[in-house]
């Protein structure tokens, strides 16, 4: 009898059930989408913050002082120590290599421009988008990843070519354009494009690193490496000196993607190097990230609250409309327990159906948000499904409880006379 009652109730009152079901579905969908977005927003914004460029720099351990004003290097280019280019792929062998988005080596030298003029300009050797191999791992890295704000009019040079980029101010001064030939240190080179960086590089020439090494006469030499890594915001543990930690604490520190521990691992990977965070980028990242995460958390709470309320309101209305039915059941001798059981069974069924459909719709919604805003997938943890379903059932029960109690307590005589 009981299943038949439930079945008939769904069959005969499709309109009302649909209304309540739609409310639950929508509520669950919004909750799912918001939870998915909120749990993933940290990763997403962290990636977006990489548009600020590299947050770590690796320099030779025994280096002389940089003498540089406004991007013009006054130190003799061959002065000081160098890193070895052959060590670079080892960066991909560090513990947190998945978090390392990209790196680019830099080698500033000075070169003579023109055929017979004595004009000296700074030439920066680097990777543009170089294929690097470490073990079985192939990847491309260079300034296109670590310096995403560099804009090129024309084309990026190929890393194996002898083509160069000319900074826009320098290009204006030399009155050259993309596609022209430029004599550098006695040899002609094609200008692949004009570079605009909004910084010192606008007055420089940027070339594949092999060219800079050739001009300097030091094959394999690298002055510094910029590394762009996804990091975890700094906390008290991150700031501690690893030398003062016990082994257990050290492991925890080492295995957290703090900017400090990634710097430590880079130092391990590259011999005779010193890795340091670029504080301007690294320090502010954490603040911005925590603000945005906090904001989304609060907004998600608001979303959960709003959808819980919508579900309760719909359920309360649906049950309130059925007082006459309750009256009839009670008049026929049903106890308040069995009436309540019927309503809760219906609510459970509605919540489960609404929960499943809502979860699917919410996943789709989160996917759409990820695609349209972040151009990437928002991953939905499977563990979210039972949680969402449980929340849906709980909220539906909570929303129905008060209405069911009132409906059951109502005198059947009044209900049947329609004086509710």
């Amino acid at each position, binding site marked *: 009898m009981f299943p038949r009652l439930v079945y008939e109730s769904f069959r005969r009152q499709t309109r009302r059930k649909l*209304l309540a079901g739609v*409310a639950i579905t*929508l*509520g669950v969908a*919004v909750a799912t*989408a*918001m939870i998915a*977005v909120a749990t993933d*927003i940290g990763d997403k*914004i962290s990636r*977006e913050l990489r*548009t*600020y*460029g590299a947050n770590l720099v690796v320099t030779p351990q025994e*280096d*002389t*002082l*940089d*003498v*540089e*004003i*406004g991007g013009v290097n006054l130190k003799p280019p061959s002065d000081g120590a160098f890193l070895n280019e052959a060590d670079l792929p080892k960066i991909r062998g560090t513990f947190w290599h998945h978090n390392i988005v990209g790196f680019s080596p830099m080698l500033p030298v000075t070169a003579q421009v023109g055929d017979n003029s004595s004009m000296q300009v700074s030439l920066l050797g680097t990777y543009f988008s170089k294929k690097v191999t470490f073990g079985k791992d192939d990847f491309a890295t260079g300034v296109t990843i670590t310096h*995403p*704000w560099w804009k090129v009019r024309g084309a990026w040079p190929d890393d194996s070519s002898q083509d160069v980029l000319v900074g826009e101010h320098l290009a204006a001064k030399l009155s050259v354009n993309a596609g022209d030939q430029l004599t550098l240190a006695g040899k002609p080179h094609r200008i692949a494009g004009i570079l*605009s*960086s*909004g*910084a010192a590089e606008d007055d420089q020439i940027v070339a594949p690193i092999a060219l800079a090494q050739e001009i300097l006469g030091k094959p394999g030499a690298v002055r510094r490496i910029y590394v762009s890594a996804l990091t975890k915001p700094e906390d008290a543990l991150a*700031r501690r000196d690893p030398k003062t930690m016990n082994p257990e604490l050290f492991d925890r520190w080492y295995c957290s993607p703090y900017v400090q521990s990634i710097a430590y691992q880079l130092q391990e990977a590259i011999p005779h190097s010193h890795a340091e965070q*670029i*504080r*301007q*980028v690294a*320090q*502010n990242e954490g*603040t*911005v990230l925590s*603000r*945005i995460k906090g*904001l*989304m958390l*609060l*907004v998600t709470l*608001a*979303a959960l609250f*709003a*959808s819980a*309320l*919508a579900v309760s*309101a*719909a359920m*309360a*209305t649906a049950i309130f409309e059925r007082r*006459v039915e309750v009256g009839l059941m009670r008049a026929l001798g049903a106890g308040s327990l069995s009436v309540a059981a019927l309503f809760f069974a219906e609510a459970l069924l509605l919540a489960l159906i609404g929960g499943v459909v809502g979860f699917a719709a919410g996943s789709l*919604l989160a996917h759409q*948000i990820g695609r*349209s*805003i*972040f151009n990437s997938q928002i991953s939905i943890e499977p563990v979210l499904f039972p949680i969402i379903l449980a929340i849906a059932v709980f909220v539906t029960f909570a929303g129905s409880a008060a209405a069911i109690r009132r409906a059951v307590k109502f005198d059947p005589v009044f209900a049947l*006379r329609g004086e509710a």
Partner: protein
Amino acid sequence: MTTSPILHTPKQVAERRENVPHTSMFVRMLIRAAVLRRGRAASALFAMVVAAAVATAMMNLYVDVQAKLRTEFRNYGANVVVVAKEGQPLPADALAKVQSSLGPQTLAVPFAYAVARTKDGLSVVVVGTDFARTRQLNQWWNVSHWPNPQPAQDSQSAAVSGSSTLAAQTMPPAAFTRQAPKGQKNAAHGVSRGLVPETTPSPDGQQTTPVEALIGMRAAAAVTPDHKPFDLTFQGRTIRLTPAGLLQTGAGEDSRIYLNQSEFQNWTGIAPTTIEIAINGSTSDIETQIAQLAQRIPTADIRPVRQIMEGEANVLNKTRATLYAAAALIILTSALCVLATLIGWVFDRRRDFAIMKALGASERLVNGFFAAEAAALGAIGAMLGFAIGIGVAVWIGRANFHAPVVPRFSVFPYILAGSILVALISAVLPIGLLRRVQPALILRGE
């Protein structure tokens, strides 16, 4: 309505009715309907208030969060740089012009550069700046101890041996109201605590106040590994510097030595060549400001710092879009909640509807009655909800950004219109259904 006791004779009743302020039947019906069915009316109003509050909070946040995040992004430092064109110094009044053009709220910091030599012949870059402003602009600088921002005036000539020809020109510090966020504690961690400045005799034996300098980590290792005062020479003039603190940034600053501009200028005679500015605003705002500045200081190059501008625009746009999507979803859900509750409420009152019609009320009157009721509910709900929503937004601002969210009263008309609209829709829908039913059927309870 009136509760005056024992006035029951017909004459007294008539008199009383005379004196009662004359309210129309329409208004009386509205009020009685709300008072008599307190429970249902209250639950409908509650739904309305919550929805309006959530919508208000979301709209407020959406409008305000950009300004809040922009302030956070200013911690990344300067986004515009004024540089002297090649071979020309910056005009002496450049900083004053920048400050007057952008207002005293905007941070602008002058920098002057020189390459000096140590006793051992090592070249090192020395920078003259305004420490108080640098500290506000570059909050990521890890400094063990900041030098005194206002050097004692009498120390200026004494500390520099040799003749100083140029009088120091310092700009009066503008009234900064910008505060460092509470979460930022850059003052000291990681680097050893402040080094106490000491009084040292100058080369010719006179007791002088030493010139305090902020020394980059790498420069310190090369120039004064034991943090003792040291001498620097620039074009034959020697200055004795006392390391006041160590500076760590992970970038070029680590190889430099920073001095107060007045002391720097006394020593080298070099005026500022660069002004770094942190302008608050959207990309287009900043571009207009740059154009204005370029007009006022034609002899300088004014460039946006692309790294900072583009990073900020990117992250801000993504955050705004996410928040927009979230706000839209939440407002939609709460509107739906109101709709469901109100439809139930109106539907529940089909007997009122039937009685009115049975007593001869016209279709227009009944429709008007329910519409007026819904509108009143929407309006009251919107007002209460707006007040609560502002409270929620202010709380979120406090909790997350440690700064109050400014209430946006411009949001109110939208909330009011939206609430009334949703209420009207939820009244009209069931009325449309009920109109088709004979009043007698409803009254018979069918």
